[in-house]
Structure formats: structure tokens, C-alpha cells
């Protein structure tokens, strides 16, 4: 394949350019955290030598090659987005503290480059993603972010899967009983209570909400694989290894703990 391609539609050309500028600014912003008095790019103008052509109804830009004296000049003036500008313009996009980021929600279903393109389109969170999808459909997002509709559908489907963030023990109300396990995460409630298992055995559920499940495991169920299934194929799995597993009930019945 040719290393250098012929050209790009205008939007993609500008996105390729701004992605480079974002990358440079990200690196400089990182540095600014360490050294407060740091130079940053404030204004940037570019005069690029290029050819313009139509392909179908799309305008293509092709950078001029060696010996190309008849190229046109594309003049671009770019302003970096400052913090006050951002705050002024993004209040309506405020993200709740509980809201998962796009990366947490869709996991590896989309590549980092695809997530970046969604962010260019103003989609930073799952709720923004869903809102735009329900309002405009996948085809519109596909057009803006250049991600195939089928992949967007798969990513949204992946975002409805249960996901475990933390598992902690909760002391029992009466002495001698096994502690409860408090599981925090997302999407635990779909049509009814989920199927929670540890080491393949069902665990009684005490309380469940979309963001948490409280279960009452048997004394031998504090190690092994914890699975939470909300629907066929929608399953979260994590390995449990609770260090302060209950001692009392174990010593009384003398059962061996499954690992």
C-alpha cells in the first residue's frame, strides 16, 4: 500500500489536523501541572499547500507533492480552547459524579481512536451517547464519528452489561452470622433481580438496585468466581478473594473453604 495517500474529505482532513493539535496540547497540559509557568500554544495559523478536488459531492484536499508549483493555499486559523471558554460552553453537558465514562461503559468494544472521534462529536458519556442515538439514530453518529453503525450498536449493547466495580464485606447484624457482600457497579437490575453466583452456586440476594447488590453468601462462598447475570449473555464476572472471610461458622461446622 502506498505510504502517502492521495487525499481526504475536508472534514476528515481537518479532524486529522486537529487530532494532532489536541495531542500536542494534551502533552503540554500535562506538563503544565508539573511546571506552572509553562508555555502553551495560544494561536496557530497554517498556510498549507494543497490541491482541492471533488469526488462525487465531497470536496477532497490533497497536500501538494514535490515539484508541485500549482497548488492552492489553504489558510487555517486555529484557536486553542481555554478553560474559561470550556466552562462557559459546557455547563449543559455536566456529568453526574456517578456517571460512567464512555471508556468504562463500552470497554474494549470501541478502540481508543473511535472513542476519541465520539468525543469530537461531543459524546463523552454513555447518557450523551444514548441520547444522541435515540434522537438521531446510529446513522447520524456513524456519519459524524466515522464508526460503522453495527459497531455503535454493539458498543451500546455492551454498555448495558452488568459491571462490577467493588466488592466489600458488610458486618452482620447479629453476631455469629456470616457477613454480607456489598457489590457496587452498574446495570444490576434489568427485568428482575439478577442471578448471583459464587463458585457456580447461587447466592441469596438481600437487596438489589441498578448500582448495588447486597448478598448473603454461605461461609464457604467468600472465595471463587462471582458472577452476576441479568439476562442471557449479559454477565459480569470477577474473582473473589475476601481476606476477612468469616471465621466463626467455619470453625463450628469444620467445612473446608473452597478456593
Amino acid at each position: 500500500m502506498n505510504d502517502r495517500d492521495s487525499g481526504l474529505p475536508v472534514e476528515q482532513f481537518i479532524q486529522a489536523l486537529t487530532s494532532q493539535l489536541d495531542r500536542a496540547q494534551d502533552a503540554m497540559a500535562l506538563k503544565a501541572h508539573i511546571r506552572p509557568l509553562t508555555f502553551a500554544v495560544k494561536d496557530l495559523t497554517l498556510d498549507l499547500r494543497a490541491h482541492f478536488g471533488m469526488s462525487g459531492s465531497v470536496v477532497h484536499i490533497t497536500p501538494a507533492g514535490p515539484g508541485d508549483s500549482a497548488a492552492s493555499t489553504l489558510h487555517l486559523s486555529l484557536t486553542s480552547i481555554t478553560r474559561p471558554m470550556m466552562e462557559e460552553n459546557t455547563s449543559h453537558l455536566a456529568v453526574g459524579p456517578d456517571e460512567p465514562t464512555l471508556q468504562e461503559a463500552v470497554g474494549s468494544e470501541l478502540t481508543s481512536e473511535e472513542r476519541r472521534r465520539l468525543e469530537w462529536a461531543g459524546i463523552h458519556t454513555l447518557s450523551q451517547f444514548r441520547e444522541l442515538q435515540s434522537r438521531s439514530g446510529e446513522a447520524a453518529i456513524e456519519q459524524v464519528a466515522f464508526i460503522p453503525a453495527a459497531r455503535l450498536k454493539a458498543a451500546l449493547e455492551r454498555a448495558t452489561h452488568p459491571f462490577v466495580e467493588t466488592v466489600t464485606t458488610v458486618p452482620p447484624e447479629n453476631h455469629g452470622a456470616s457477613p454480607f457482600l456489598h457489590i457496587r457497579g452498574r446495570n444490576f437490575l434489568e427485568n428482575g433481580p439478577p442471578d448471583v453466583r459464587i463458585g457456580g452456586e447461587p447466592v441469596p440476594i438481600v437487596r438489589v438496585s441498578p448500582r448495588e447488590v447486597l448478598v448473603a453468601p454461605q461461609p464457604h462462598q467468600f472465595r471463587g468466581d462471582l458472577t452476576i447475570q441479568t439476562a442471557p449473555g449479559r454477565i459480569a464476572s470477577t474473582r473473589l478473594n475476601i481476606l476477612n472471610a468469616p471465621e466463626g461458622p467455619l470453625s463450628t461446622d469444620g467445612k473446608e473453604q473452597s478456593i
Partner: protein
Amino acid sequence: MKRPLSEALRELVEAVQSAGNGDELIRVGSVYFDLPLEVALRRKGEEMEFLGDLPNWRWRTVFDLPPGRMRVLCDIGDSL
């Protein structure tokens, strides 16, 4: 081989960082560059990468890309 524009830009801004260490009484507050810039596109996987770099040589040959112009204003401010 040209570098991605982000690298060339970072290096440029990096070059002025060393113009002071922050504890001087007087220091440079802004720098304005007006430089030649060669650009090209390179396919990287499914993406197109925007390459942009300063010319390698002062004397141009027919094999070199016709340079455009890059003007950069850097300052110590609240830019992200």
C-alpha cells in the same frame, strides 16, 4: 520521513520552555514563530495521520515538498 505535526509542535514549544526556569524576575511572556512547514498525509492502520514538519534543508530541491507556513503564538497563559 516527516514527523506527525504534534511532535514538531511539541518540540517547538519545548524549545522555549528552557528559556527560563521560573525564578527570574524578568522572563519571556510570549513567543511568536513564523516558520516554513511541509505537510503530508500518511495512512496508519485505518487512520490518516497528519504529518507536519520543518524542512530538513535550507536549500530546496525538486524532491522537497512545497512548504506552507506555520505561525504559532505561545504564551504563558490559561490555555489548556
